[in-house]
């Protein structure tokens, strides 16, 4: 990781597109994504403390809470946000199972589910639950989300 003490240009690869932003040294990835220059507001601030997962994005295919990652840390890494999902099976599954109500936590759960569906252990229900436990939904019963993720993972078998 490059070190800097003043705002500097940082090169990111977001949704397969090279983007350059000016970031403060202490700026979180969540803040950068949602800022005026990128405007990727799909990732949501829910606690900015790593507890709720509404800000989950993928860094090199692995879900991370973007409120706990510094923009400087992910320079030259591949970042995928919900805006980068293009008719991914998980999106259709969420629609089919009505796996959301207010929709605020949805981006985070979608990114988790999408990453899971690409993961080697996707068939393991315990693994799926373990991953999905990192995020909070206050509207649904979780069953809808679990069903959507399970369907997506098993349809890829």
């Amino acid at each position, binding site marked *: 990781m490059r070190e800097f003490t003043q705002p500097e240009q940082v090169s990111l690869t977001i949704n397969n597109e090279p983007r350059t932003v000016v970031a*403060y040294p202490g700026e979180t990835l969540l803040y950068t994504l*949602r800022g*005026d220059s990128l405007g*990727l*507001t*799909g*990732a*949501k*601030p*829910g*606690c*900015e*403390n790593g*507890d*709720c997962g*509404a800000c989950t994005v993928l860094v090199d295919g692995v879900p991370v809470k973007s409120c706990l990652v510094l923009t400087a840390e992910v320079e030259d890494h591949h970042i995928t*946000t*919900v*805006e980068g*999902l293009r008719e991914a099976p998980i*999106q259709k599954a*969420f*629609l089919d199972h*009505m796996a*959301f*109500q*207010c*929709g*605020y*936590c*949805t*981006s985070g759960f*979608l990114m988790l589910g999408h990453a899971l569906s690409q993961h080697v252990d996707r068939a393991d229900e315990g693994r799926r*639950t*373990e991953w*999905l*436990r990192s*995020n*909070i*939904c*206050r*509207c*649904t*019963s*979780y*069953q*809808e*989300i*679990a069903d959507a993720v399970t369907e997506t993972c098993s349809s890829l078998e």
Partner: protein
Amino acid sequence: MNIIGTSVPRKEAPNKVTGRARYTNDINVPGTFHAVMVPAHQAHAQIVSIDVDEAKKVPGVKAIITGDDVSILCGDVTEDRPPLAKDKVRYWGEPIALVVARNEAAARRAASLIKGRYKSLPVVNSIADALDKKAPLVHEKNGSYTVATPPVTPKKSSNIADEANVTKGDMDKAWKASDVKVKVHISLPQIDHAAMEPRIAKAEILADGRVLIHASTQAPFEVQKLLAKYFKLNPGQINVTAPLVGGAFGGKAGVQLEVLAYLASKAVDGQMVKIVNTREDDLATSPLGMGLEADIALGASKDGRIQAADMRFFMDIGAYTDSAPRIARAIAAQCTGPYAVANVHTDVYCVYTNHTYTTAWRGFGHMPMTFAVERAMDELAEALKMDPMDLRELNAIRPDDITPTKARLTRSNLGDLPKALTHMRQLIGWNGGRVEAVAEGKVRVQGVAAFWKTSSSPPNAVSGALITMNSDGSVNLSIGAVECGPGTKTTAAQILAEKLRIPLDRVFIHEDVNTQVDPEHWKTVASLSTYMVGRAVLDAANDLITQLMALAAAVLKCSPDDLDYGDEKIFVRDDPSIYLDFKDLALGYKYKEGDSIGGQLMGRGKFMIRHLNLLDQHTGHGRPGPAWTVGVQAVEVEYDQNTHQYRLLKAATVMDAGKVLNPAIASGQVMGGMNMGLGVASREGIFYDTEGRFLNHQFRLYKVMRMGEQPKQYLVEFIETPQVDSAYGARPIGEHAVLAIGAALANALSRAANVSLNTLPITPETIWRERRAH
């Protein structure tokens, strides 16, 4: 009917799975200033001074406001809450100052440099503390505050902010005559709404005097009215926009950050200022759901008929009143639960404490009230040696019964509880409540509880709908109810599509609410939106159809009585080959020669709630809502007698929905409600230390349900007894699935652990403690 009763997806669903759904904090004007609150780190103290000198030096800081700069008091019932603490602080986390800066980082840095100096006061840290004769007063001026919305009866020189009473029949006589009596004491902590979107408000004061507010709110029209009142503006000057709301659960029905945003904007010459809660603010500083202590006494005849109910409810409302008096009256009005009880005496007290203040929480007091009543019901069943399901069925309230406030019940305004109970026996496979051993030290047990609820809404609540037609014959629908998750907008669109006999995708509904554009809607609360909006939409649709018919009649040279409509056409009833398309009428009809008549067709619809009244202060008699939704909930749990751990196997709800407008959305609403209620019952609660400090203002400490902790199986069934004055017979169902599920869990575990579990949350540790104490 081809749209009502079908599981159409939410209108905004595609946006919600692509990150394109926009909430208040996703729409920002470049250059917006940020405001940050400075919380008090004392629960009860006199403010000696607030030092802002260091904070002012932070580059980018534009203004710092303290309580001394603000002269207003807020409150939708009793005006007792300064927007920023003034003279004293009354709860840990209460804002003492507001910093406005160019950016969030500067505002936060400056806020951290502001130091309050306090003279500590004794902390009123519980209902018992507050009711002690020598208790320090949370509000020295209790009883002298301006009352914005009567009734409210504060008791001077005490911590009782309000009292509501209901009496029916002769309680004392019936109590003496009762064969079997039970008394139960209930104690429930305050809880949080924990909507995933933290509360947020933005304000801008334009040069022409208009005030623009953007907020995550359930009550944009209330924000408009209260800001106008507090700041002596005309309501018309204030334009409130509410985009999609990321969960609300009653927590966004009050007005808090909007006032601070306005003050902040005013301090920086009307610039756009944003104030957004951190999660910590959202828990400790913004209002919670109330805590409750209750003493319930039920008396019954030998055969199990309840004769007498004597009840005291003490609400831990925290430091300010907010909507507590209205919640107190809601509890009083429904205090018996869904049972016919001839003799009732109930007192409900709103008690000030040095805890975070409280507001509506999904169910408007009915969830803690139901917990108390339903625990007493199970104790009564045990005393009578009766099946708890049988006891509920025997006493279930029915048409022609009267409620505790003497409102008369009909087949339309009351759901069918006996039928729901019958269905529940099947759905959960009711075993009579027996404790069944399944393995060494492990037992399986079921628990049941029932609920009822009405809206407890003001007698003058209004709603409206506006329809405009597009050139292609499709329609735009505008309503004043916000979308916070339950599919309110989609349901309204379904009702309109059904009435106009057009496909749902021909109805475009405004996702946002804007008070300057959309018709007034009281608040998106009380599960009432489908009822109120639905009626307004039908009214507007009828208005539009009348206009379509009138214009078509003129063009087709016939009477409107000869016409019918369907398939986006107005046609002659006995010869459908003579017709006009909606699109040819939508913006007026153009004859072949080019001359035209009509103009754009617009449907106007309104609805006002009728025949409600405020409860009489002495007897409590009155009519608190248009109809009572009823239902029954049950759980099946496996309990480990050695470790006191338990697993949720099944959770079930049977509810009388009147008519299910959208089965998938309705089931989701009920499953989510059960999950929330079970979360509350099994792990949630606000903890204060002995100094009144708020201990768990993060999600790693305030635990909500997570994936894998939900029951293995959720079961939902609706029965349909129409509410005839509601669109297509639909009854309110939004809040209800939280109401009794926690009580059902406590009833199951009390039997499994052989000890009365009358406090929440129920954890293995609390079960162990209760067993050790008995």
